[in-house]
């Protein structure tokens, strides 16, 4: 059973390392999906928002980590 628990933990860890990054990414995708499907946003604009959003989320995540580990 312990090995199954470890495998499960690793499987989750494959996708979620920084919880905030995963949450922001899912929120971004959900928001863009809703905007395209229900608010008639041009899909290409939605695609551009995905790229910009991914960059912003990555930047926030690495800078947050760096700020936490900065020499005071």
């Amino acid at each position, binding site marked *: 059973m312990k*090995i199954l628990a*470890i*495998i499960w933990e*690793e*499987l989750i*860890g*494959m*996708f*979620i*390392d*920084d919880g905030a*990054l*995963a949450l922001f*990414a*899912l929120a971004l*995708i959900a928001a*863009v*999906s809703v905007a*395209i*499907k229900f608010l008639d946003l041009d*899909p*290409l604009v*939605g*695609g551009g928002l*995905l*790229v910009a959003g*991914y*960059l912003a*989320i*990555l*930047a926030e*995540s*690495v*800078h947050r*980590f*760096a700020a936490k*580990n*900065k*020499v005071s």
Partner: protein
Amino acid sequence: MDNLTTISSTILTSFLASFVEIVEAFTIVLAVGLTNTWRSAFTGTALALIVLVVMILVLGPLLQLVPITALQFVVGVLLGLFGMRWLRKAILRASGYIPLHDEEKAFREETEALSKQRGLGRADYLAMIAAFKAVLLEGVEVVFVVIAIGSTHGLTLYASLGALIACVLVIGAGLLVHRPLARVPENSLKLVVGLMLTSFSVFWTGEGLGVSWPGEDFAIIVFFVIFSAFSAVTINLLKPGHKSVTKEHVL
């Protein structure tokens, strides 16, 4: 041209992602073989491979039942989480915030742990479990990458080919040198894989949402360039004024 771009990027991504994962699994299996017995190493590896084959046999037919746009969307989202995780770690490694992955160190640590177990009655079993776990956990990531990047364009065969070439290369090199493949530039490869997976993710999530990317499949290369430029700038910005961090879990 578009087809060639898709096929070559699929094979390359699968090859690189599989290569780094197989190198890591090889290090542990080698440690088990040299510290304990090769029987434990091979038994653990074989059992893990059986589990992986079962996973492929179950998942493969199931994926064929999913409509292509839904599949592209789900794969895009999962690849986004997976790829951005790799990219984040690669950026933090390159800028010195988390330690670089070191196969020699991983080999030493595994060897020490196995040596301590040698006196125990269950030493063979524990060594076999170590090999099983390493191959299974790294193998699951290989299977995910192959299925994810192969299934959305019906290129699973090409993605599998990339993984197979990586497997043959690592095992061949490992048999030749009989030691961990520490000279493989794993950290740089992981950065490239993170960039590729994130680029594929944007492309397929968009396609799943009905985006017609200008240039079609060529857009993947454009995304790769954008994320590469972002990573280069971020690594340079982060480099000064940091301290080493050792507690972070290393891939």
